[in-house]
């Protein structure tokens, strides 16, 4: 089979929706105006209390510039902290119509002190509006919640949901329990009631469990790979715990977790579901059906088979209506909308991946 390798010229013809943009603080004091004095002092005195041996740096150092695009550093602060540069370098230059902010830092997802986590969550959500979404209407916020306090998380979702500039709920898929567990269900109940998708961005260590079931890896290469295996176990948990039987309209978007594994995971789940049904009678339908109806996947970092048409076949099995293009700006493994796909997309496929699917999922 010969397929001509071409650039997908989506961004030249249509503006697109970016499913994964990371905003950053210029310095931590940016957050202080949004924290009560008690927690501001706590932050200054103790800092975050996380389940990892190093604080304020990654235990798996990234390959370049702390995992950032070397050209994305503003004059002051880290990449992603300067709206003007983000506009110039990404939003304007690449034709971003709407961009989903995924605020990974300081939102309380990884904090062990749950009261502090709640204060951080509120602070980061306020900060997203004031620093980003208010001045730049192309950007949309995500309600960042600490999943380990599901009652607070649900209340924060209810509090933010009327503000339609928040378009999804964001928490760590690396929770202390597999996220299908019932202790997290108040989050799903609030999200479904408010028609907000759950955005699950790959994370490193939040709940403290090692990133493989055989312990911690040695190299960043392995740690990075574990994003994709971790996301498979998250999908498995949500389906087999019966989350979609209880919340059938819940939408889940794994972000930066890969997608070429999804069809195979569906087959594998179906095979074992059929054999083991007496253990899991609450899972009424073949698991691949939930995968096909309740999940959407962002594209970055996109897989690149030696034969690009193989990727097209995988997407065919997954469904062209399941993919949301994402760039991961300003991180080092940024995918460019014009270069990410190494095979020709039809106009319908382009329209779906670069725009239509995101509009449908996020209600834009």
């Amino acid at each position, binding site marked *: 089979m010969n397929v001509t390798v071409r650039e997908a010229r989506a961004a030249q013809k249509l503006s697109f929706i970016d499913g994964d943009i990371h905003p950053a603080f210029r310095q931590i004091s940016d957050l202080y105006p949004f924290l009560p004095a008690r927690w501001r002092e706590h932050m200054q005195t103790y800092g975050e209390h996380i389940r990892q041996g190093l604080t304020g740096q990654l235990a798996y150092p990234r*390959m370049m510039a702390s995992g950032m695009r070397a050209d994305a550093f503003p004059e002051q602060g880290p990449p992603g902290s300067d709206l003007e540069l983000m506009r110039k370098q990404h939003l304007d230059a690449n034709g971003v119509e709407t961009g989903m902010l995924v605020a990974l830092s300081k939102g309380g997802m990884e904090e062990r002190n749950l009261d502090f986590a709640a204060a951080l969550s509120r602070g980061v959500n306020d900060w997203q509006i004031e620093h980003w979404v208010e001045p730049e209407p192309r950007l949309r916020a995500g309600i960042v919640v600490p999943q380990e306090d599901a009652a607070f998380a649900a209340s924060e979702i209810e509090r933010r949901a009327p503000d339609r500039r928040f378009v999804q709920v964001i928490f760590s*898929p690396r*929770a*202390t*329990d*597999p*996220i*299908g*567990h019932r202790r997290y269900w108040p989050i799903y109940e609030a999200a479904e009631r408010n028609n907000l998708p759950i955005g699950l961005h790959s994370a490193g260590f939040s*709940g403290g*469990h*090692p*990133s*493989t*079931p*055989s*312990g911690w*890896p*040695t*190299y*960043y*290469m*392995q740690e*990075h*790979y574990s994003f*994709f*295996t*971790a996301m*498979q*176990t*998250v999908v*498995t*948990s949500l389906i*087999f*715990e019966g989350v979609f039987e209880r919340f059938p309209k819940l939408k889940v978007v794994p972000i930066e977790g*890969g997608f*070429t*594994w999804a*069809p*195979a*995971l569906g*087959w*594998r*789940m179906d095979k*074992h*579901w059929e*054999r*083991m049904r007496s*253990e*899991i009678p609450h899972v009424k339908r073949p698991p691949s059906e939930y995968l096909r109806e309740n999940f959407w996947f962002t594209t970055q970092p996109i*897989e*690149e*088979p*030696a034969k690009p048409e*193989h*990727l097209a*076949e*995988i997407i065919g*099995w997954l469904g062209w209506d399941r993919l949301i293009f994402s760039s991961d700006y300003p991180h*080092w493994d940024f995918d460019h909308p014009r270069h990410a796909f190494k095979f020709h997309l039809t106009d319908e496929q382009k329209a779906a991946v670069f725009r239509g699917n995101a509009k449908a999922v996020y209600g834009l």
Partner: protein
Amino acid sequence: MKLPLKGAIDCDLHPGMPSMADLTPYLDPFWRDQFENRHIDRMGFVLTSYPPNSPLTGRPDWRTPQGQPGGGLDMIRTKALDPFDTRFAICNVLHGAIALFNEDMSAAVCSAVNNWTAKELLDQEPRLRASILVPAHNPELAVKEIERVAADKRFVQILLPVMGDMLLGRRIYWPVYEAAEKHGLAVGVHAGSTYRWAPTPSGWPAHRTEDYVVQSAAFEGQVVSFLAEGVFQKFPKLRLVLLESGITWLPSLIWRTSKEWRGIRSEVPWIDRSPLEIIHEHVRLTLQPLDVPKDEPDIVARTLEHIGSDRMLLFSTDYPHWQFDGEDALPDGIPEGMLQNLLIDNALETYPRLRAGADSGDTGGRNKETVP
């Protein structure tokens, strides 16, 4: 479909588990005494990963009248060897010894299991071969056991669980691979966990079904560990065999690691060529459980094309685990030109000791130097 060729090599067969009473004669006096006094000899040593009554653990027609999966030699012959015209079958006795925390006790039971396997299985049935059970959590003791058993050429592989104390590529395990390479043994990594860590990076799932589904992610982690740590550069003759791993997750892993390597290679400079090539050369996977939808030969064919090599898959029945019905051990959709490799040649390439036996016309048993 049924097997179209005679003389297949079944690379993953599970005999009925020996009881502690079966193993006691193979323990030395110290451990026999310990086991008797502490009532350890009354314990079942059933791995949590394989509860005997679970549907997956035993196909209904592959259970004894008492319901035990697998059974003894007679059952293995009539249910697992004869129906498939099997020339050789590799027994993987995945005994609970490997989950004991006491490393010396674990080593003692592993030795007893290996001795039992040699005497009760290999001596009795010339078509059988076996893997060496080792206490992987103490590589020094593991190597000692390998050195003890390796003289018996009917042991063709070292058996490790996919989820153990640490990722298997780590240097602490390298003496095991050195011994494997020295003796022409493959390294077999089998599904199942000693549950030293949660089965997922977000903790402990509620259901066994989940534990079983997410095993493929554990296999992925191990392949990436072997790759990243440079095990195949250090031991260029090593063959890593993934047992009961499923196969359809593999293309995604090949694409992902090959792309990542381009960006991350300065961190792991010993990886001197694309992971695609390294995986094709060194990694093998057994066929069952085949994780494709029923009656979708096109998906089987496309997945094999995505894997990109006809040298990687090894035939297995996974007897007595319930992965297929009747004698339809092969899915439709495998290209005809691949069958000889899948059923016979790939196993001979992977297991030097099988190859030696096959070349000398041996059907087993005759060149044995029994375990001391």
